């Protein structure tokens, strides 16, 4: 019994940290609320889609910025997509960098764009690691016979 409570506490604290540090915002709560017994893996599934799409978009962006003649409209379209999907799962810091990225695109500022690409890759990598840790903690709670205490 004790171990379940401990694990739940860990999960709650870790989640709170992610919100406090701005990695996640309220949209993530919205996702949690959509999860139910008929679809207990909903959040993991959606976040996995986000990981796949983001990795594809980041690759496309890297390629686009290496071209001899930069297609800013293409880059903007990719960043717009990344902004949309990151905001839809609550990945706030990724979304914020995307906003700056789009501004540099508008200005056709190649250096700014390259800087933002690096930044967005970093933020993505961070949020990915943190979400994976979060899901692992959830699994541990469930494996110990506890339930996930959403919403937090």
């Amino acid at each position: 019994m004790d171990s379940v409570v401990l694990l739940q506490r860990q999960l709650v604290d870790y989640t709170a940290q992610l919100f406090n540090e701005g990695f996640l915002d309220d949209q993530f709560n919205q996702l949690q609320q959509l999860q139910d017994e008929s679809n207990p893996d909903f959040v993991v599934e959606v976040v996995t889609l986000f990981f796949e799409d983001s990795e594809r978009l980041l690759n496309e962006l890297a390629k686009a910025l290496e071209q001899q003649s930069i297609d800013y409209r293409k880059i903007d379209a990719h960043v717009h997509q990344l902004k949309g999907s990151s905001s839809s799962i609550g990945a706030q810091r990724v979304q914020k960098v995307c906003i700056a990225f789009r501004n540099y695109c508008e200005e056709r500022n190649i250096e700014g764009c390259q800087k933002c690409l690096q930044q967005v890759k970093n933020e993505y990598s961070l949020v990915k690691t943190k979400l994976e840790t979060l899901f692992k903690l959830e699994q541990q709670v469930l494996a110990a016979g506890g339930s996930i205490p959403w919403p937090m």
Partner: protein
Amino acid sequence: MATSNGSSTGTKITALVVDDDRVINAIHCKLLNKLGIENHVAANGKEAVDLHCSGKKFDLILMDRDMPIMNGIEATRELRAMGVRSIIVGVSTRSIKQEIQEFMDSGLDDYQEKPLTSSKVISILRKIDFVD
């Protein structure tokens, strides 16, 4: 929240989610699903138009604005020109008044900022009298 087999005929409300972002599609479909709405997905405006050409009808269409091949503005115009009377709600992240107006002018009944939440969807359904 009442379970919504709200329509008096007992038939399910049907919705079409049009968006090129599959993360958004998964979320919006789940939202609608939880409200008892039967939903379909189209990845861009052209797919949405093609579905209608093949005879499909929907009570509600959630139309994204920026999509490849055919965007939401073109698709909405096309659907209205085809005589489609469904409720079309534009869904986008754009917040500039002019851009929203441009989208509305293409034939939308309503506009919501994405991502949608249950309360936004319920407010749409209330407007079209499907929910008490």
